[in-house]
């Protein structure tokens, strides 16, 4: 589930290299499990510049609201309209169809500073 082509941050977002310096970002399976049934996501706008660690949106389940943190720095190139209209996609397929947005990285080397799948798994005690 937490595959080697993905990178992670301790706020439970994942990052996957798509093409060149563009990455996709979502919340992890672990995060969606903790949140439960998702009912609302608010994402940054296409074109918006984001910095690592910034609060850039919110993910809400029936029981709680959770801030969404930017795992990387760059510019938003796409958001997943499917997950906006049906947030449960991020429950059922958090690492694939339930991706949230794409970012053109300021510095592709930032990926090397993120957690590997193994490190993330040990972080969440899996």
């Amino acid at each position, binding site marked *: 589930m937490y595959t080697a082509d993905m990178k992670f941050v301790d706020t439970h977002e994942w990052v996957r290299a798509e093409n060149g310096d563009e990455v996709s970002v979502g919340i992890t399976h672990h995060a969606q499990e903790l949140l439960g*049934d998702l009912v609302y996501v608010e994402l940054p706008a296409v074109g918006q510049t984001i910095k690592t660690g910034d609060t850039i949106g919110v993910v*809400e389940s029936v029981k709680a609201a959770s801030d969404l943190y930017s795992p990387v720095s760059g510019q938003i190139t796409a958001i997943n309209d499917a997950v906006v209209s049906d947030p449960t996609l991020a429950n059922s397929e958090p690492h694939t169809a339930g991706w949230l947005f794409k970012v053109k990285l300021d510095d592709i080397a930032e990926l090397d500073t993120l957690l590997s799948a193994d490190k993330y798994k040990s972080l969440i005690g899996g």
Partner: protein
Amino acid sequence: MDFGGWALPVNYGSQIKEHESVRTDAGMFDVSHMLITDIHGVDAKSFLRYLISNDVNKLEKHGVGKALYSGLLNNEAGIIDDLIVYLMPFGYRIVTNASTEAKDMNWIRQVATNYKVELFNRRDLAMLAIQGPNALKKVSSVHPHITDNLEVLKPFMAFEANSFFYARTGYTGENGLEVMLPREEAAGFWQFLIEAGVQPCGLGARDTLRLEAGMNLYGHDMDETINPLACNMDWVVDLSDESRDFIGKKAYQLAKLASDSDKQVGIILEGKGVLREGQKIIIDGAECGTITSGTFSPTLKISIAIARVKHDVGDKAYADIRGNLEPVRIINLPFVRNGKKLFE
């Protein structure tokens, strides 16, 4: 999660699925954390007539087993707790909240010193709430010996059989039962109900169900600083017998005369996001209320809330959701009863 010192599940699986099972079929909640107290003694009736805001005098014409919802008020008419009282063969039984157990019992025992009553906390009993349109049918399939009793059981009535106490009460806005039973029998009963197709539900679904049904949650929608007028509990203050004195009566009557008490309303989000407790209600840039419970409604697929607002607030306002003013509609509670939406 920790709830008044009790470890309780927020959800067993999907909270939305649990919620839907109660609206369309049958679900059950382990509510053994709630405190059952039996009141015996020659003064039991006069004690309760003074202790609580509703009048137990009206129970007798319905007979043993009749239930009544009430507030437990302090001298300022603030709400110490809400409770259900049942008329029993030996006197009365009250069911109060878990999170308020210590202060409730201190208060009740203090008032009781002036009456010939004895109070027994029944921690030897467990309590399961089985709720939903098929709840009675499924309980009946597990306990066929009470099928006839269940068929004639009216809302807010209860009966006892083989040391199980079955009450047609609940906290979901659906038909259903709350069953009090010897705690050592609870696990077996639960298992039989699962086999009968009753969905186990956690505190999460309990919260979304009661919110849709417009029912208060103690510590959120009301507390000791809130009087019954400001939380839709006016109807459980019984002033019909003018000669009856009860705790908080004078303060309540004064608040009622002033007629500028806040009121409790339902809020429907028309903008983006999810309404949550603590968010402010805004009209013309001015704060005029606060959300006391908010969620996403699994039945209605929109965000709804209970709010306490100024008495003259109309039907349109804004909610401040993380700094964004989102339009909301204001309605009379509840949102949902017996599986049906109750507003246009």
